């Protein structure tokens, strides 16, 4: 799939823009703070309905002194042409797909698959487990609507159950009523866990070979799903989950929180058998994050039958020249890529790109 055009108004620091993209290679260049990353963010927002920046609140996307942000993009996707219009003001978010107003923002996910690589991906290896769960959830949700629906239902059950634990602790509810929520949590949670396990099996191969190719070394990248509840040999996910909930009632009641389930699980990333979070060098961590993201792109392409759009933010600054070039070469020519970079030499070194110059929020094709 590829994004053909993007029109925007009131988005971050960007002046109103209307851009036509190359179906293969696009490059935004300009100094720091000019708005290159904001352009990538606009593309991401159009595809997913929220920012890929962790700290970004929706209202921060609206330009200072403006009331409204609007994006409109046309893409060529597997189902034909798709037109997405996204608008956001202080009160509400609006979404139209091919002119049809959409009630649920989740309708958008997976229609325009996308994978973003940015310096913030370092958190994937260095940061807390939430980063890795988000990575898995986003990767899977883009090709499985069922998974996305299960996630939403799970969150709802979790909220209900946490509230009930709290009420039980405060003596406002009866401990007996917890059981029905346990059953809901386990049924829904087990579906999520099984899907994650299945996907990790796929990702493991792809990320492993990507890692070897990028690092040029012999170190093995490993992925393993880490359950928050301990399993006995021969025990299924449901059983282990149920047992954990049953044996930790007092603990959970004290905390007023559900301590087991897919919302507490982790994806363990290892290099040569060692956990990268504790033992990996910065270079290893970065290479592993890139390998994971590329594996995500490859997996999405396989699952959806079309290649996702790839965003590369300052990736040249993060890897040495040879590796950066290698990265782009790995993606060419099948993927539509958008690169944002501040380094002029990266730009001049590469041809075949449609270039856009970004200066103080203004974007112009060269």
């Amino acid at each position, binding site marked *: 799939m590829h994004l053909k055009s993007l029109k925007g108004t009131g988005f971050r620091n960007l002046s109103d823009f209307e851009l036509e993209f190359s179906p293969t290679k696009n490059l935004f260049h300009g100094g720091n703070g000019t708005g290159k990353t904001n352009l990538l963010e606009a593309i991401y927002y159009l595809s997913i309905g929220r920012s890929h920046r962790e700290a970004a609140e929706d209202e921060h996307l609206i330009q200072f002194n403006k009331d409204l942000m609007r994006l409109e993009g046309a893409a060529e996707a597997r189902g034909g042409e798709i037109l997405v219009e996204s608008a956001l003001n202080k009160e509400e978010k609006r979404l139209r797909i091919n002119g049809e107003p959409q009630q649920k923002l989740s309708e958008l996910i997976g229609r325009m698959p996308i994978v973003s690589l940015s310096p913030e991906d370092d958190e994937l290896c260095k940061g807390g487990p939430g980063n890795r769960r988000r990575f898995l959830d986003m990767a899977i949700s883009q090709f*499985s*609507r*069922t998974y996305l*629906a299960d996630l939403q*239902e799970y969150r*709802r*059950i979790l*909220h*209900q*159950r946490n*509230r*009930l634990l709290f*009420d039980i602790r405060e003596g*406002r*509810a*009866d401990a007996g*009523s917890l*059981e*029905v*929520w346990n*059953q*809901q949590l386990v049924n*829904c949670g087990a579906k999520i866990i099984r899907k994650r396990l299945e996907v990790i099996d796929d990702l493991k191969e792809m990320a492993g070979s990507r890692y070897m190719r990028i690092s040029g070394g012999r170190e093995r990248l490993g992925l393993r799903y880490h359950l928050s509840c301990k399993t006995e040999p021969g025990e299924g996910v449901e059983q282990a989950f149920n047992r954990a909930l049953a044996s930790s009632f007092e603990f959970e009641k004290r905390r007023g929180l559900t301590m087991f389930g897919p919302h507490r699980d982790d994806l363990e990333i290892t290099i040569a058998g060692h956990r990268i979070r504790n033992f990996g060098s910065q270079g290893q961590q970065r290479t592993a994050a890139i390998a994971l993201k590329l594996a995500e792109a490859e997996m999405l392409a396989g699952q959806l039958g079309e290649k996702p759009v790839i965003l590369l933010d300052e990736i040249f600054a993060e890897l040495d020249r040879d590796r950066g070039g290698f990265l782009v070469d790995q993606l060419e020519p099948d993927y539509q890529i958008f690169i944002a970079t501040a380094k002029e030499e990266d730009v001049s070194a590469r041809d075949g790109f449609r270039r856009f110059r970004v200066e103080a929020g203004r974007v112009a094709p060269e």
Partner: protein
Amino acid sequence: MQYGSPALSRTIDELMKLPGIGRKTAQRLAFHLLKSQPDEARALAQAIIELKDRVRFCRECFNATEQEVCGLCRDPKRDPAMICVVEEANDLLAVERTAEYRGLFHVLQGHLSPLDGIGPDDIRVRELMERLGRAPVREVIVATNPNAEGEATAVYLTKLIKPLGIRVTRIARGLPVGSDLEFSDEVTLARALEGRLEL
């Protein structure tokens, strides 16, 4: 907000207490009433007063009725050995529209939802259990909504009723009739697969 008339702002404030009505809609309705014929507004007011005075909940099934026991519960043609449990009276009407169901109903008047402070004692569960103890019931069909709260309520009822030796069934989650498989949305189809039946 100032509307230049206390009566007008009071009407708007009262209308805004209704579900699904925000300030704008309330204003539109209030101005509509203001412009309408005097009889029309009076008829509405009268209907609301009578609604509260006359309508109550059926002693048996908690459906809305003007009698002690509702028409459905008194109908000799209905099968009293079958009870369909729904969350709200609206859901009862939906099942009735099918014209396929010949048993009785039980309206829970809610679902389990700790977030809203609603536990088993806040919905008509105790009344259902009393009913099951009074009359011989063969089957209870649980027709709560197919969402987290509805499912939890269904599981809760099953745990209570099954030990009485009464058959408990749950309505299926499935595909809309007359639709093509290829056009149905993935989530509905996945749920239908989960709930597949042996042929």
